């Protein structure tokens, strides 16, 4: 079937801000889809509120709207742009839901817009629990007994009929949000109430629990002619009960025979045919571990996190093919880009094993429960490829960058057998380490399997790894043993640790005996056809396939690893743009990364892709084969920066800012010297290693002080301390892990926080703009609302910032990007920190100023000068727009996480509000972040004493907007004394009605709760905030944020229609 000639202008909906359950995979899918559509000559109109994405670049789509993803906004865009078609299945659940709403309301039909790809009918059949179940029954595909309920009574009745435990799954939610397993009626009522509220349609599926069954997924493609293929299947090592996003997953399935494999494959095809899906689809099965009995768990009629993983695991570009199918092509008409010979109508076959491990945020939320459930908690994931399972698992573990490099990385040696047996019952992120310890303690496979339901095959593989640990420890380290250890991917440092030798000795022994990594190609066809795809992975004990090189200069671009809080998709954006810029300048580009969700690991971004862990040893393996002319580390976040020293030891020149200058910015003494020379003030402070030293410095400076480790991103471990006790507490937290670098203790200054990203060529500096944070210092910059251009500071401050930036960049000999954070106290400017590398605000500031910072940085790195590139150095004139970056959090997904903002970053993503006026931009930013007020116009205020003055002003404004204000005792008194009407409510332990009762009564729109200093000091406040978040009430923990919100609401009242801004028209300035 040729492509549909009626499709010319396609509206693509992105997935919005990164939240848990909906992350970078949709930037990858959306970018691939847009490029695929443009390849076919389509005009692409893109809407996505997330500015940190590649897909919102002017060169990916023709028209780019970084606007809030709401039905109203989409309707306005459709009216303005008049697309003929809408592609809703690339933007995750968010995009799909919007497409559905537009279709259901008749708006699409009215304006002549066709839904491309899967139809609304199909989506309903797959997504609506009842319709889905009926459809499955019709075609004889089994589902677990279940009932869709819309109230708690029906849920309780059904559960007592089918028996506990039961699984609860809210309809139309992200990442299983609000779901869970209930073992009794109390749990059922709790989870069900939450689930009903979170579901867009107020429906929750109550289902017989099939926990413990094997969880198997199939990625299926179907075209309009009905041709179907499965791209790959995947097996979750964690059986049913853990969300697949939080499970360790292996591809292809390992423990299924052909009978089981084909039975489920046929079922998946049967289902996709019946649903009539055109495009990609994910089918999840539960397979009974000891019979052929299976159940269909769910179907996702769109590209998903799993399909991104399947794409990277096989090389089959699911999103690209899905986009072509949407245009009317059939699978046998679409070429397989990897082989260039075969077609998309074939099934990839793997000759390697792929392991995915989720990146869970428990290092950020140390108070949160580590338990894994059907509610996804991971912020990102890593993938690894090997020719054996043990090796792939080892590679994935060290890719996580969570201080783990082998199965001994968590120490459970103290646990007795009995304690281990108990501990194995807990399903959390440490389960494989616990299984390893159980094996070491001699607990048999059957017992471990009976408790965990993890398949014996995987348990045996873990045992092989523990046996190797023991063999290395026992010694002697023979060549045979070393070879075997490397075959299953024990890194040199672990071998060194276990054998009591040095890492250098191990490396030498390997090199002397030719035990080196070989590189194999991912080619979709197990070498059956010659492929030219430059997509490689390493193995030991094999031959390297010819890695062809061009007679060009070679540059290594180090990626940023898994998405985590503090190091998100922004760094992938930077890596990809740098790669493209190097390619334009005639370089051969090589990317190393291990994140399957990102654009950078798409095989056609760089000339070569190595899907490998980002550790010194793994990078050296690649360097030995490729011998690059240089490496860039400044785009890949802290992951890449950390590799600088190792790269230099390997003899790879670091392109751009020199390593010693990067060090100078991080090293306290060196940096102080530079500040002295350049006469730039900063908050007084000192470097320490121990709590004693920290207290001494703190007392010398006077409290409050800021405590933080150096060389980290996202303010990990950063805290404001107000007392010696807190210093002790925070230092203990930081020193949980051995620190390679000293800890910094600084005087805390309260003022306006400002930030610049700039490009420096060694002589001149180009500052696209100054961003001002709405929250004053103390809130991490990544969690602050950031405004460009800075709205409230004086010209003098701006000039000072430009001047200081120039001096700092020059003193640090920056070649490329630099990010500097300042505090302005009145007109005095202090520097907080300098990072000679890319930052989280780079994509945002590039888009709103029209200055392609990463491209410029890359050109500067290869030796060009800012002036030659057509730019006048210095601070650039402000753009015509206000652009406001709003942080977005995923607190509701992480049970027990403290939500109050502080110096440690907690947001998972961001969205943008862009408009001609500050107020409209602010309104859009809040709207994009999902803060959709008001419903009931009732709010609660409970603030610490220091905030009472500001709270009065804010409350007065809310009152004016018609809000009914509830407040706890002292806050109420302060408000009432100041003439703001506030109703007093009791604290939690006091008699009803308390604050809690109010929140649980579902009549509150907003809670403003500013916590007293310090962690865990205020359990009341913590409970109030958690309850608010978990019941879907907006909760604000900083007075500045509250003031901004009320400004936005005041503006919303007068807002009639939003102005839409096509970001692609913000001209590339200076070019």
């Amino acid at each position: 079937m040729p492509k549909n000639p009626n499709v010319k202008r396609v509206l693509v909906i992105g997935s919005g801000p990164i939240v848990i359950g909906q992350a970078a995979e949709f930037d990858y899918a959306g970018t691939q889809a847009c490029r695929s559509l443009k390849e076919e000559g389509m005009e692409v109109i893109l809407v996505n509120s997330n500015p940190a994405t590649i897909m919102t670049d002017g060169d990916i789509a023709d028209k780019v709207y970084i606007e809030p993803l709401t039905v109203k906004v989409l309707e306005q865009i459709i009216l303005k742009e008049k697309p003929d078609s809408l592609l809703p299945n690339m933007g995750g659940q968010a995009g799909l839901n919007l497409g559905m709403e537009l279709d259901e309301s008749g708006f699409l039909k009215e304006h002549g817009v066709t839904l491309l790809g899967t139809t609304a009918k199909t989506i309903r059949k797959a997504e609506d629990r009842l319709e889905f179940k009926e459809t499955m029954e019709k075609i004889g595909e089994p589902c677990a007994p279940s009932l869709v309920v819309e109230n708690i009574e029906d849920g309780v009745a059904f559960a007592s009929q089918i028996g506990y435990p039961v699984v609860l799954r809210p309809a139309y939610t992200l990442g299983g949000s609000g779901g869970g397993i209930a073992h009794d009626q109390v749990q059922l009522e709790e989870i069900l109430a939450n689930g009903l509220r979170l579901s867009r349609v107020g429906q929750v599926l109550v289902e017989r629990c099939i926990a413990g069954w094997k969880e198997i997924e199939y990625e299926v493609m179907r075209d309009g002619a009905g041709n179907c293929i499965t791209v790959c299947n995947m097996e979750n090592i964690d059986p049913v009960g853990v969300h697949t996003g939080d499970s360790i997953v292996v591809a292809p399935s390992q423990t299924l025979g052909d009978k089981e494999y084909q039975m489920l494959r046929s079922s998946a095809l049967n289902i996709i045919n019946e649903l009539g899906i055109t495009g990609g689809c994910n089918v999840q099965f539960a397979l009974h571990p000891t019979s052929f009995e299976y159940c269909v768990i769910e179907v996702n009629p769109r590209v998903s996190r799993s399909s991104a993983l399947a794409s990277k695991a096989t090389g089959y570009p699911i999103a690209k093919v899905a986009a072509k199918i949407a245009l009317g092509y059939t699978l046998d008409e679409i070429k397989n880009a990897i082989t260039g010979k075969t077609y998309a109508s074939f099934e990839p076959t793997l000759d390697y094993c792929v392991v995915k491990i989720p990146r869970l945020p428990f290092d950020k939320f140390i108070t949160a429960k580590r338990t894994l459930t059907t509610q996804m908690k991971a912020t990102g994931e890593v993938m690894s490829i090997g020719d054996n399972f043990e090796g792939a698992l080892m590679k994935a573990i060290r890719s996580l960058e969570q201080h783990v490099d082998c199965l001994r990385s968590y120490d459970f040696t103290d646990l007795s057998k009995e304690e281990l047996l108990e501990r194995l019952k807990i399903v959390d992120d440490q389960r494989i380490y616990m299984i390893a310890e159980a094996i070491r303690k001699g607990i048999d496979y059957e017992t471990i399997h009976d408790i965990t339901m993890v398949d014996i095959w995987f348990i045996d593989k873990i045992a092989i790894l523990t046996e190797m640990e023991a063999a290395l420890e026992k010694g002697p380290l023979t060549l045979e043993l070393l070879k075997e250890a490397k075959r299953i991917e024990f890194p040199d440092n672990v071998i060194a640790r276990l054998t009591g030798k040095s890492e250098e000795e191990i490396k030498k022994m390997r090199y002397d005996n030719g035990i080196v990594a070989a590189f194999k190609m991912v080619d979709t066809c197990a070498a059956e056809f010659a492929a030219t795809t430059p997509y490689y992975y390493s193995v030991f004990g094999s031959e390297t396939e010819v890695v062809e090189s061009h007679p060009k200069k070679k540059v290594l671009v180090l990626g940023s690893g898994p998405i985590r809080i503090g190091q998100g998709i922004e760094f992938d954006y930077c890596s990809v743009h740098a790669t493209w810029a190097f390619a334009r300048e005639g370089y051969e580009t090589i990317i190393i990364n291990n994140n399957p969700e990102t654009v950078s690991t798409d095989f056609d971004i760089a000339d070569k892709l190595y899907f490998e862990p980002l550790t010194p040893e793994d990078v050296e393996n690649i360097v030995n084969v490729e011998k690059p002319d240089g490496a860039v580390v400044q785009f890949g976040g802290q992951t890449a920066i950390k590799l600088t020293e190792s790269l230099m030891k390997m003899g790879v020149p670091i392109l751009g800012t020199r390593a010693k200058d990067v060090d100078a910015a991080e090293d306290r003494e060196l940096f102080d010297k530079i500040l002295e020379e350049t006469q730039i003030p900063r908050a007084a402070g000192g470097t320490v290693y121990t709590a004693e030293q920290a207290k001494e410095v703190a007392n010398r400076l006077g409290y409050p002080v800021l405590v933080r480790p150096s060389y980290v991103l996202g303010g990990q471990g950063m805290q404001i301390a107000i007392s010696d006790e807190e210093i002790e507490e925070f230092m203990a937290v930081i020193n949980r892990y051995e620190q390679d670098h000293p800890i910094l203790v600084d005087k805390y200054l309260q003022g306006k926080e400002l930030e610049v990203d700039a490009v420096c060529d060694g002589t001149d500096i180009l500052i696209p703009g100054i961003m001002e944070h709405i929250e004053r210092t103390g809130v991490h910059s990544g969690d602050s609302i950031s405004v460009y251009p800075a709205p409230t500071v004086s010209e003098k401050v701006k000039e000072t910032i430009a001047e200081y930036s120039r001096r700092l960049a020059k003193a640090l000999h920056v070649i490329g990007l630099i990010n500097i954070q300042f505090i302005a106290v009145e007109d005095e400017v202090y520097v907080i920190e300098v990072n000679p590398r890319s930052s989280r605000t780079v994509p945002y500031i590039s888009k709103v100023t029209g200055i392609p910072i990463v491209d410029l940085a890359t050109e500067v790195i290869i030796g060009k000068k800012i002036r030659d590139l057509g730019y006048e150095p210095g601070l650039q004139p402000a753009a015509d727009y206000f652009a406001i970056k709003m942080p977005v959090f995923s607190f509701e997904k992480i049970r027990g996480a403290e939500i109050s903002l502080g110096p440690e970053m907690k947001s998972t993503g961001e969205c943008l509000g862009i408009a001609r006026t500050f107020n409209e931009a602010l309104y859009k930013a809040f709207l994009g972040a999902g803060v959709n007020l008001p419903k009931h116009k009732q709010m609660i205020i409970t603030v610490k004493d220091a905030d009472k003055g500001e709270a009065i002003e804010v409350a007065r404004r809310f009152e004016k907007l018609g809000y009914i204000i509830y407040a706890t005792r002292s806050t109420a008194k302060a408000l009432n004394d100041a003439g703001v009407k506030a109703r007093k409510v009791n604290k939690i332990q006091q008699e009803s009605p308390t604050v809690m009762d109010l929140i649980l009564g579902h009549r509150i729109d907003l809670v403003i709760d500013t916590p007293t200093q310090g962690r865990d000091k205020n359990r009341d406040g913590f409970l109030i905030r958690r309850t608010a978040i978990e019941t879907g009430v907006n909760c604000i923990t900083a007075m500045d944020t509250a003031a901004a919100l009320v400004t936005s609401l005041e503006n919303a009242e007068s807002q009639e229609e939003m102005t839409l801004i096509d970001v692609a028209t913000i001209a590339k300035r200076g070019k």
Partner: protein
Amino acid sequence: MKTFLILEDGTVFEGIHIGAKKDVISEIVFNTSMAGYLEVLTDPSYAGQAVCMTYPLIGNYGICKEDMESKRPWPDGFIVRELSRVPSNFRCDITIQQFLELNGVPGIAGIDTRALTRILREKGTMNGMITTNENYNLDEIIPQLKMYTTGKVVERVSCEEKYVLPGTQKIAENGPFSGSSVFNKEDYKAGIREKKPSLVRELNGRGLRVALLDLGAKDNIARSLAARGCEVTVYPAWTMAEEILADKPDGIMLSNGPGDPKECTSIIEEIRKLYESEVPIFAICLGHQLMALATGADTFKMKYGHRGGNHPVKDLQTGRVYISSQNHGYVVDMDKLDPRVAVPAFVNVNDGTNEGLSYTGKNIFTVQFHPEACPGPQDSSYLFDRFINTMREEGVCHA
């Protein structure tokens, strides 16, 4: 024990020994299926060949004897990256190591199977030797390897006597289950196992009698027909056409099988007689090639064949593409087809080679791939229904 795989071109791979302790010379081929190693091992079409599995982890679910496609494994040798130490599957009877030893199949593990596959892809299928002799002499071995031919193998793999497989009488209670999703560990421990599900939902072949000429048939061909209600009589490969026709079957099925089709000279003569009869015929793989040769077409040896479970074939009648299970080293030459005799019915989407023929003016339909699957996708099992419909349309129903 150190073991070597020596190829005709002088390449030597060193690995470790698996299976029976003996040296063997054979034709080396590769199979790209990710699951289904037992079905591959017991597919008689591999007689005279040693199979390399491109998927590196083999033996993970052990040997489930009920999945065997014939009574024994046929390959001369088995080549893998890694054999699983502990198999895991509720039906597992023995380990793959035991199975290979018990059945006298030697093999080699621990070699770079991807490198081997790339050699075979570039240079074409070639002969090789698996040996444990560390003092091998290439000058002696290579001429030996070059001389080796698979020869006549069909007679070796066919059944010895005719036998009958009765048709299924009622749809077994073995379709996919609905609703009863209770995991009962006690039942499991007591040895209670669920039945296998079946793709077949209708006994449309009830009352039909099919003659299956066993040229090295995989069991699932007869099973697929019997599961639809057909009574299947299986004949040895050397059975005369007259004998088959005398039993008055409603349809004749020609099975898959090993070796070079042109070696089967006498069988081709008998198949010509079957062609002349008016009985509907459905043929798979070797049967498809022999029918082509019997009616004047030609076959040739492919560079490295099609062996795996991911080959797309296009049904030229409907334009639909199906993913098929394949195992063949020879193919019908499309350039030499006489459209008055036969026209292509299926083509391979990857390389455009012939995958099926429809015989002009005859109720004869043949395919190169394996609609009986096992291992591999079940997408084309509808062809058995098509065959049953053809037999019904002929009106020779005995029901």
